[in-house]
């Protein structure tokens, strides 16, 4: 019997405790920076699009909501001719962000994407592309790896070894460190 009275008293004390309700939409919820919300395509610090249309995100997507096609720009740089995400299918899992080698596709803490028309849930590239580097400032894929696009020469990246000159490759011409 006493435990029942104690329960009633404990619940009564909650009259004086703060409510934990977040009164959306007047008060927005606090989201962490890694919150997996709306997908964006970012640019590198030099202003060029990061996406090289490698199709890794489309391959990684568990619900196949990404569609894209690659093309070559006039200066030889590869880019996505069209890049379409169907947000009616997207489950915001973040697999595309994990798969992307250039940190192009990113998930941002924005979830307010409700639409009245189902067709408006399909986002094209112009809806996804943003003008900044997103969550990874200062990263340019072509500085680390990739084809020569005028950013660096082959072999000059931070963790890169100089390419081997096959025409002068004879036994005994490699140092210890080059041999690996």
């Amino acid at each position, binding site marked *: 019997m006493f435990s*029942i009275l104690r*329960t*009633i008293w*404990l*619940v*009564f004390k*909650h*009259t004086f*405790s*703060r*409510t*934990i*309700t977040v*009164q959306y939409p007047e008060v927005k919820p606090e989201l962490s920076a890694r919150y997996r919300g709306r997908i964006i395509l970012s640019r590198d610090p030099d202003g060029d699009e990061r996406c090289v249309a490698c199709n890794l995100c489309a391959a990684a997507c568990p619900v196949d909501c990404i569609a894209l096609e690659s093309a070559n720009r006039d200066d030889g740089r590869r880019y996505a001719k069209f890049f379409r995400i169907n947000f009616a299918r997207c489950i915001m899992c973040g697999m595309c962000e994990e798969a992307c080698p250039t940190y192009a596709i990113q998930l941002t803490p924005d979830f307010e994407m409700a639409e009245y028309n189902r067709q408006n849930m399909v986002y094209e590239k112009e809806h996804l592309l943003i003008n900044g580097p997103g969550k990874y400032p200062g990263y340019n894929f072509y500085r680390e790896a990739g084809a020569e696009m005028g950013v660096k020469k082959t072999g000059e990246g931070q963790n890169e070894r100089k390419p081997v000159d096959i025409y002068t490759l004879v036994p005994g011409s490699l140092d210890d460190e080059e041999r690996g």
Partner: protein
Amino acid sequence: MSPILWSVLSIIIAILGSITVAAALIFVERRLLAVWTDRIGPNRAGPFGLLQVVADMIKIFFKEDWVPPFVDKPVFIMSPGVIFITVLMSFMVIPLSPFIVASHLDVGVLFFLAMASLGVYSIVLSGWASGSKYPLLGSVRSITQMLSYEAFMGLSLGGVVLISGSFNMSDIVNAQKGLWFFIPQFPAFVIFLIGGIAVIHRLPFDLPEAESELVDGYHTEYSGMKFGLFFVGEYLGIVLVSALTVTLFFGGWLGPILPPFLWFLIKTAVFIVLIILLRASLPRPRIDQLLAFGWKVLLPVALLNILVTGAIYLAIQK
């Protein structure tokens, strides 16, 4: 004013007042339950959510009132009205103030107990007439629960009637002018409150409804206005049991400075809030635990209470 006019006025006040309070309780209960569970209740419809009652009423009126083909039609349609009628009738004998009594019935207490027993019919009939298993289980549980707890409720009033010397509710309130009855009759007060909550099948005794167990208990097959009648009938029951506890054990309309009607309202409000607090805090016992508690604990205490009260009364009279 002529007594007939006073009577009619009291009837109107009692009925309108109780139905208004019961409707307002829809909103108040949700807000109070939210306070005790660290939430905010409904606060979107109208200022502070006050129009939630209106929204709920409109919703209930416009819902499709479908009568299933496998039910016993006349009983099905009539049984929600039974509880409404019996509870409202019980309000007629409660003195809201020295002058506002709808009916100076000399057997007021017995009348209320009789109406409570009739109220069981509504659950029994609706459960049986629904013709499906969940209402049947709900009504079977409710018969046992309500019959047993009504017995204890009635027995607990024996001491009150003994001290005040009459079954008339106004006489009982007047007899409390020196000392409110909950002090000398504390066990009886506890038993009456527990029994009252069981009779209006409210948590923790809401096995007939058992929201998480029996789908919706005895009112599973009801929709639209019939369900609305059960719904409001339950809140009316809360108001009734609070008003009765106040009248029989807490001095009714007695109180110092404020007008008597206001005292009655304040005390009834305290008990309504207490009953809602019980809903917020207590888990639901199993039907066998419930019945064991009733017959093995409450019945002996109620009988002992009458015994001791009678003995002391006789001793004082000598």
